[in-house]
């Protein structure tokens, strides 16, 4: 699993509250990603990072912000959660050791009521 840990695994929150999801890796890979998975939409890239403090937007970045102050941690924040952000969120890392393999975490099921 390339040492990826997502937390929390499940979260239920209310509309309008802030939410932060954490992705932690133990192998110092440079690239980290946040995707959301929804029926009919597949996996959609929210934000990705190519180094400490270096991030870029993906396909569906509105309503989300990210931060990466350390190589091992990539945080996804929903500043004011909405019901449309109910989803399964996956963190991924790109294997720096050759090839272009993405390793995914186990996902976070987020429900916004």
């Amino acid at each position, binding site marked *: 699993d390339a040492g990826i840990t997502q937390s929390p695994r499940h979260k239920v929150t209310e509309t309008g509250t802030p939410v932060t999801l954490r992705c932690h890796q133990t192998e110092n890979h440079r*690239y980290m*990603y946040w*995707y959301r998975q929804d029926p*009919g*939409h*597949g*996996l*959609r*890239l929210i934000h*990705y990072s*190519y180094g400490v403090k270096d991030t*870029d937007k*993906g*396909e569906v970045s509105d309503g989300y912000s990210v931060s990466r102050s350390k190589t091992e941690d990539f945080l996804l924040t929903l500043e004011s959660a909405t019901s449309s952000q109910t989803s399964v969120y*996956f963190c*991924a890392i*790109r294997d720096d050791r050759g*090839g*272009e*393999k*993405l*390793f*995914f*975490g*186990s*996902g976070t099921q987020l429900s916004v009521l």
Partner: protein
Amino acid sequence: QQQVKQSPQSLIVQKGGIPIINCAYENTAFDYFPWYQQFPGKGPALLIAIRPDVSEKKEGRFTISFNKSAKQFSLHIMDSQPGDSATYFCAANFMGTYKYIFGTGTRLKVLA
């Protein structure tokens, strides 16, 4: 456009059949095309990948066919087994970046 279109949405085949999943893209800046397999409750895992300088790649029972002029690529699963039942995603990466865009997924069920 950063879109990768995948079809069908779902697929049911008998054991031993050859399911085929298709993807099409528009942006010619894509230069790497992986397929990922996802089992329920798990994150996706890389299955096989291809670059546009080859037309076919095989790894075990899995084959990617790539048609650069048509901007299409497909996954074939030979001698499919019930254990292949999963959701399959095609993806594409922009040349010079590591920004991976995924298709909408195909839910495959292989009947015993």
